[in-house]
């Protein structure tokens, strides 16, 4: 791997930056691997990276049906935070935040992680009570979160409208200062480059069409558009397409796939210092380093794999944005798109073994998976390598829907669903 550094930059400048090599190879699949990860998004690439780096698996492949980072990794609003209510969730997401804090150094790739703070607005008495409960629960769990008055919220985010004339006036806010954003493409590319350097084969344009099992029912190989590839360990990290893939092994999943929309405005000068979220009137907003306002809208009501959503859903969010930040009313929107998110009944992910020997699944991240990318990869690699979960992801099984041991962030998560 060609390491990035100030020195390398200067040396490459001498040749006009024409001598930079490819960041990762584009190999043809081998006949057999120690482990295969299906899905070349951030979570899948991170899993492969940790399998190779931490668990000594030398023959690892990532199979991606299109191109790396082209699914939800490239479609989300890049918000990273860990202020979840339940201890199991707070541990899971804070594990990821701690890895985010080191990620650029770990990967030797600038993922532009910026801890600019995520502020969640309360608009009703109920919001206020719920958020204060979150603040207290988080502080007990060792996760930073604090309560702000409307005036403090405005001081932290000057564009915010805290006037009494709003339909849902701002009554306060919960602020996690360690939270923030990162550059989504850089996360996928950084993991791809680092995993490739450890010998992981990243095979793009290779869709899995079947899962081959032996007489004992264990995973033996996968059928793909590039032929049959043997493996005894198969990790599925396919977001919205998880149900389809798990169906190939005869498993029905507690998942439904919905389009989740996001949109960006035309780029403007730096005007927005942090991330602001509002559950009640449903808006997420931050500003990218390119200057675009990055806005998260809601999911459509119905399941779909169409990677686009209805206009009334994004309109609803833009109405909320215009109410919260009246100066953005004249901004034009550049692009909007949808990603297909796999949602579990309790809105918590599944990072677990499955009833099929050799088959593992990392799914159900729903509307908020990007923030967990490094932690998800780290824990899923551990689970695949040891055939047993790490302590942090042990509660996030498939069997919790049989046993009733939900991690019920559906109502308690800091986001509206």
């Amino acid at each position, binding site marked *: 791997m060609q390491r990035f550094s100030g020195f390398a930059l200067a040396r490459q400048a001498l040749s006009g930056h024409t001598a930079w090599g490819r960041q990762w190879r584009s190999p043809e699949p081998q006949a057999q691997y120690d482990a295969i990860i299906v899905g070349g998004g951030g979570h899948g690439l991170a899993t492969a990276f940790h399998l190779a780096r931490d668990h000594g698996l030398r023959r690892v492949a990532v199979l991606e049906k299109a191109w790396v980072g082209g699914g939800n990794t490239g479609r989300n609003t890049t918000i990273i935070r860990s202020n979840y209510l339940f201890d199991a969730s707070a541990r899971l997401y804070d594990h990821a935040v701690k890895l985010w804090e080191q990620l650029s150094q770990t990967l030797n790739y600038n993922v532009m992680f910026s801890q600019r703070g995520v502020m969640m607005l309360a608009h009703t008495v109920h919001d206020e009570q719920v958020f204060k409960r979150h603040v207290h629960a988080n502080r007990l769990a060792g996760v930073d979160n604090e309560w702000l008055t409307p005036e403090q919220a405005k001081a932290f985010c000057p564009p915010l409208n805290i006037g009494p004339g709003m339909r849902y006036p701002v009554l306060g806010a919960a602020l996690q200062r360690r939270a923030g954003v990162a550059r989504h493409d850089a996360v996928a590319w950084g993991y791809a480059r680092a995993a490739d350097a450890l010998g992981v084969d990243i095979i793009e344009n290779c869709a899995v069409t079947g899962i081959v099992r032996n007489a004992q029912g264990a995973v033996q190989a996968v059928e793909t558009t590039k032929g049959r590839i043997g493996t005894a360990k198969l990790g599925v990290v396919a977001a919205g*397409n998880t*149900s*389809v893939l798990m169906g190939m092994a005869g498993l*029905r*999943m*507690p*998942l*439904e*796939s919905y389009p989740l929309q996001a949109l960006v405005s035309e780029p403007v000068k730096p005007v927005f210092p942090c991330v602001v979220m509002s559950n009640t009137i449903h808006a997420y907003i931050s500003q990218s380093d390119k200057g675009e306002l990055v806005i998260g809208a809601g999911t459509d*009501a*119905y*399941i*779909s*794999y*169409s990677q686009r959503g*209805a*206009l*009334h859903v994004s309109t609803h969010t833009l109405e909320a944005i215009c109410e919260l930040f009246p100066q953005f009313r004249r901004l034009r929107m550049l692009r909007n798109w949808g990603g297909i998110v796999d949602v579990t*009944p309790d809105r918590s992910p599944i990072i677990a073994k499955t009833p099929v020997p050799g088959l593992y699944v990392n799914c159900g991240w729903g509307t908020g998976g990007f923030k967990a990318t490094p932690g998800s990869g780290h824990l899923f690699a551990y689970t695949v390598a040891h055939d047993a979960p790490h302590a942090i992801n042990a509660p996030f099984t498939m069997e919790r*829907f*049989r*046993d*009733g041991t939900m991690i019920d962030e559906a109502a308690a998560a800091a986001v509206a669903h």
Partner: protein
Amino acid sequence: MLLIPCPYCGERPELEFAYAGEAGIVRPVDPALLDDESWGAFLYQRGNPRGLHGERWRHVNGCGRFFNTWRNTVSDAFHGAWKAGETPPEPVP
């Protein structure tokens, strides 16, 4: 926005409807007789197909009635509708 074919009112915009999930999931007559596996499967496991999907809608801001449709989850196009209690028709191409 979808144009949803209500079998009572004809095609109407999606805003008039509430989505009510996968069609044809029958509640077990006596849940107490089920083991945990089957009860969990009834409550939570869904087909979630990439392709043709039978699903329930309620025309909540219209006639108020429940009905079912075939919809392709990749194209979002509808392929037929039927009233609650009727046998599902063959999907219209």
